[in-house]
């Protein structure tokens, strides 16, 4: 079983990461991957120039490790990869990449879904949308918390 998590300031090239992930697999019958992508407009429809992701060195990396390990153990998937950006991110760039592999598809789908719900509310990041005139800090919504509650 391989569980890997990574924090990076560099662009995430999803197709390269997925290719590398699949090369290292044993006898997986199912692979699921997910990309979270920076949107070019806010929920209210205003233009977003960039996204800033603040982090807490050390604590952030450990939160990614813990979430990846929990996802792997809970669903019995054979492999988990979590990659998260920090710093400045442009619209259209990947913020977070998650991949899971398992003998059968259900566990891989559920583990990826679970990982994203945990990352949204428990990964140690602070996200700010920089608009044309103003910036706005993003905090978890009731919807994000309800998503997480599905796994309790």
């Amino acid at each position, binding site marked *: 079983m391989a569980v890997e998590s990574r924090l990076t300031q560099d662009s995430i090239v999803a197709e390269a990461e997925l290719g590398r992930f699949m090369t290292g697999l044993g006898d997986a019958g199912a692979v699921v991957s997910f990309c*979270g992508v920076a949107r070019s407009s806010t929920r209210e429809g205003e233009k977003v120039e960039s996204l800033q*992701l*603040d*982090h*807490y060195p*050390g*604590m952030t990396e*450990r939160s990614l490790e813990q979430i990846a390990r929990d996802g792997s153990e809970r669903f019995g998937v054979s492999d988990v990869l979590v990659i*998260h950006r920090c710093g400045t991110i442009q619209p259209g760039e990947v*913020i*977070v990449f998650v991949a899971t592999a398992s003998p059968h598809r259900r566990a891989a789908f559920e583990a990826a879904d679970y990982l*994203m719900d945990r*990352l*949204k*509310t*428990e*990964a*140690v*990041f*602070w*996200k*700010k949308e920089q608009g044309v005139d103003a910036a706005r*800090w*993003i*905090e*978890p919504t009731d919807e994000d918390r309800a998503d997480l509650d599905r796994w309790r």
Partner: protein
Amino acid sequence: MSDQTVRTRLLFFGRLAEQVGREREVDIPAEGCTIGALRSKLADDPELEMLAPGRGMLASIDQQVVQDEAHVRSGQEIAFFSPLSGG
């Protein structure tokens, strides 16, 4: 609380860091204190009043999120921050 204090560094992240800066030094009792007591002391400064208990700002000791009852001593790494938002 005794009169002896120890100067301790606090770290700030997220929205809080933007408002008050990345770090600040504060004197805490030599025997330590609870996070709740520290919050109340910090909140006497109008610039830090959002750190008062119940205002939604989170706290950590040595990079573990803690509640207000947690006891902190000098030499430990103390941080305060706004709610997390990853993904």
